[in-house]
């Protein structure tokens, strides 16, 4: 109802719709964050203009390894990793602000995938496993990939059918596991040194860190809708891995927690892309003259752009909330409130980019429909983002279950 006079509304006890994530009033934002964001923004403007995105979209490797190394030197790949493993040990907000900038630039390359693979090993690995993988991932010497999905199209953390079975020491190199199953849409798997993937073992879920050099592992490149996001199908057909490939604490809980982190961080990147296509379209609306005036003077152009802005700004608020929740006291455990915030952020950022890209194509007119106009890169990123870790409907379905208690 309008306004607060709801004294007149006799309904049963309301459930809490106020997401109880405990976040500071300033979302944890400091001057250091501003500096980090501005540095990242400048770096992307200088080194990853859309002309470069366009070039790399047609490049066989798909990203610029030199630039990737530079980003690693700036600490981006290891930002969330503890200093003792060669990382910077910064907070999720710092990471989100950087990803927003790489998303804005549509940076091609395995930054997010490496960050997520490292987070998986960080949260589920033993000391030895962390020592083995994290420094190389943090320093950008190794590339990581994380296998979220399998054939059949599920975004559920428990939608795992791939299996791991104990394999005895047959050829003298110690006991290990035999892995069977298929992982799909694994981002940058064909460039990665290590792929982290979940397998069912007995009735448990366990994460494995599998070196891509492992004998028998088949990595088949997919043709991704977004050429700045190279994906692959990873096929395990009785692939034998040593015992130490199994992440010791890689149980279902940490796999779900990883999803929640993934929602928030991918939402941050998606938000950046949405804001960028809004800016591109806005600029065009100011320049393009028809009927003797810039098309942005027409309300049929102006108002949809304002609606895009509203969607983008909502995503920005929700991303800030989700990230602050992850940095809060319950972050490590992932409370329902943090999960709710992260799902909201992912849902809204996905919608914002889809909508921004939709108007981006349309409002560029015939030019917008061409390969030469940059709008389509954003459109393709939108499709990829929605298809990764759940689209808006998927997250709303889960949110409704929270809200209605069933």
């Amino acid at each position: 109802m309008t306004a607060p006079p709801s004294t007149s509304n006799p309904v049963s006890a309301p459930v809490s719709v106020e997401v109880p994530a405990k976040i500071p009033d300033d979302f944890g934002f400091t001057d250091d964050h501003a500096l980090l964001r501005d540095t990242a923004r400048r770096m992307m403007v200088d080194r990853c203009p859309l002309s470069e995105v366009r070039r790399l979209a047609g490049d066989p490797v798909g990203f610029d390894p030199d630039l990737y190394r530079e980003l690693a030197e700036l600490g981006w790949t290891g930002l969330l990793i503890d200093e003792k493993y060669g990382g910077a040990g910064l907070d999720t907000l710092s990471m989100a602000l950087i990803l927003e900038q790489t998303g804005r630039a549509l940076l091609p390359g395995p930054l997010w995938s490496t960050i997520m693979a490292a987070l998986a090993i960080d949260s589920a690995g033993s000391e030895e496993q962390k020592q083995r993988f994290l420094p190389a991932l943090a320093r950008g010497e190794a590339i990581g990939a994380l296998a979220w999905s399998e054939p059949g199209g599920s975004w559920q953390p428990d939608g795992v059918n791939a299996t791991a079975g104990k394999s005895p020491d047959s050829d003298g190199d110690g006991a290990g596991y035999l892995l069977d199953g298929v992982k799909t849409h694994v981002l940058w798997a064909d460039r990665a040194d290590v792929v982290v993937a979940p397998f069912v073992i007995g009735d448990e879920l366990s994460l494995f860190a599998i070196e891509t050099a492992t004998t028998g592992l088949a990595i088949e490149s997919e043709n991704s809708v977004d050429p700045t996001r190279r994906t692959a199908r990873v096929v395990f057909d009785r692939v034998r891995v040593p015992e130490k490939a199994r992440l010791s604490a890689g149980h279902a809980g940490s796999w779900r927690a990883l999803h929640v982190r993934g929602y928030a961080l991918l939402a941050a990147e998606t938000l950046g892309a949405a804001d960028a296509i809004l800016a591109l379209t806005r600029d065009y609306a100011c320049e393009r003259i028809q009927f003797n005036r810039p098309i942005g003077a027409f309300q049929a152009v102006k108002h949809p752009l304002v609606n895009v802005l509203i969607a983008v700004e909502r995503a920005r608020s929700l991303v800030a909330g989700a990230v602050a929740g992850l940095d809060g006291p319950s972050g490590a455990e992932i409370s329902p409130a943090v999960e709710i915030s992260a799902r909201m952020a992912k849902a809204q950022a996905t919608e914002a980019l889809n909508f921004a890209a939709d108007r981006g194509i349309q409002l560029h007119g015939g030019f917008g429909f061409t390969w030469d106009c940059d709008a389509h890169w954003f459109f393709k990123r939108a499709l990829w983002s929605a298809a990764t870790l759940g689209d808006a409907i998927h997250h709303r379905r889960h949110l409704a279950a929270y809200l209605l208690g069933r």
Partner: protein
Amino acid sequence: MESRQSSQSLQSTGSPESAEHRQFRAGVRAWIADNKPAQPDFMLPQSFLEVETEAQFDYLRRWQKQLYEAGYLGFDVPREYGGQGVDSARQSIVQQELGRAGAPFFVNQIALQWVAPTILTYGTEEQKKRLIQPLLSADEIWCQGFSEPGAGSDLASLQTRANAVEGGYRVTGHKVWTTLAHFARWMILLARTDPEADRYGGLSYFLFPMDTDGVVIQPLVKMTGEGGFNQVLFEDAFMPSDSLLGAEGQGWKIAMTTLTFERGAAQSQNRERAAADARALSELVALVRSTMRDGRPVGDDALFRDRLAALWIELEAIRLGARRASVAGLTADHPHALAMMHKVEFSEFRQRLNRLACEVLGPEAMLWLGDANAPDRAEWPRGLMNSYGFTIGGGTSEIQRNIVGERVLGLPKSK
């Protein structure tokens, strides 16, 4: 390693609520619980736009006065003018707690939210001393005389004249949609003092005393059948010189200040709204949970679930946005966007919320006020209709989108 910093340096400077503020919040909450007035035996208006009867007015005025006297109103007004001294954190806390408790609204909304800050910005010392305290205590109610029959969205085309005469001005003209004029002691009046000047430069801003001869107030009836707004006719009505706010010819600029407050510049106000909106969504959730259709809970229907979740996301974005607006670092990309978007956001959210509620009600949504079988006493269809007061009043959603497009996105003006 340019971007590497020690993790210590990233400690947030804005701590969560201080012990003092927590205690204050607890005090406010307890006070509201003890003092929130009982549901009256007459129908209350849903917002300050619909206050019609003496009984409604007295009930609401008493509540505001009680809150003022308890020391919980006026944290955005210095003490010398009757306020509590400026402390925006406390203001936010009070507003949030009021919203959360579903307490009645303040009848003198126009005065509190947009007249007071305008007078504090442009008023003389005498004007501040004379006018602010009684508006806080609800002893003097204010209305806003901007719109005219021929000047709504195009406000600067207004024709009401204020002619300078000995000792003051004489006003002739016609204002319309004037909320609360029938209870008002004062009006913020935008009138033309110089017909020769351009459409903006000829306007002046007045603090007009309503108890003057030559003022005729005629109630208008809303689509719901409720009252609350009026047309006001001025027939050579006199006001003294000190009614002028600012200087002659400065009216447009001052009016824009007022409209900025009206449309959501005050963050504490936006946080209160968000708290009230959260309550409204809770009520909708309860409705969904308790409504059956064809033997099954409406809440099991995927279509309703999806739209409910979408509203929840929207609400959370508005709630977080009201907080984010005061964090400069997190508004750097589009400064002022949140404040300027606010009116469109909250008013359209309420419209969607009430619309969904009516759809949840299904066949029962047709029952109107006064029908004994109407679910929730027909508050939902009433809320849906009244929501248009907010998407039209104070600058329509279309005008707001023009403004956001031009001021925030920098798009060319629509002519």
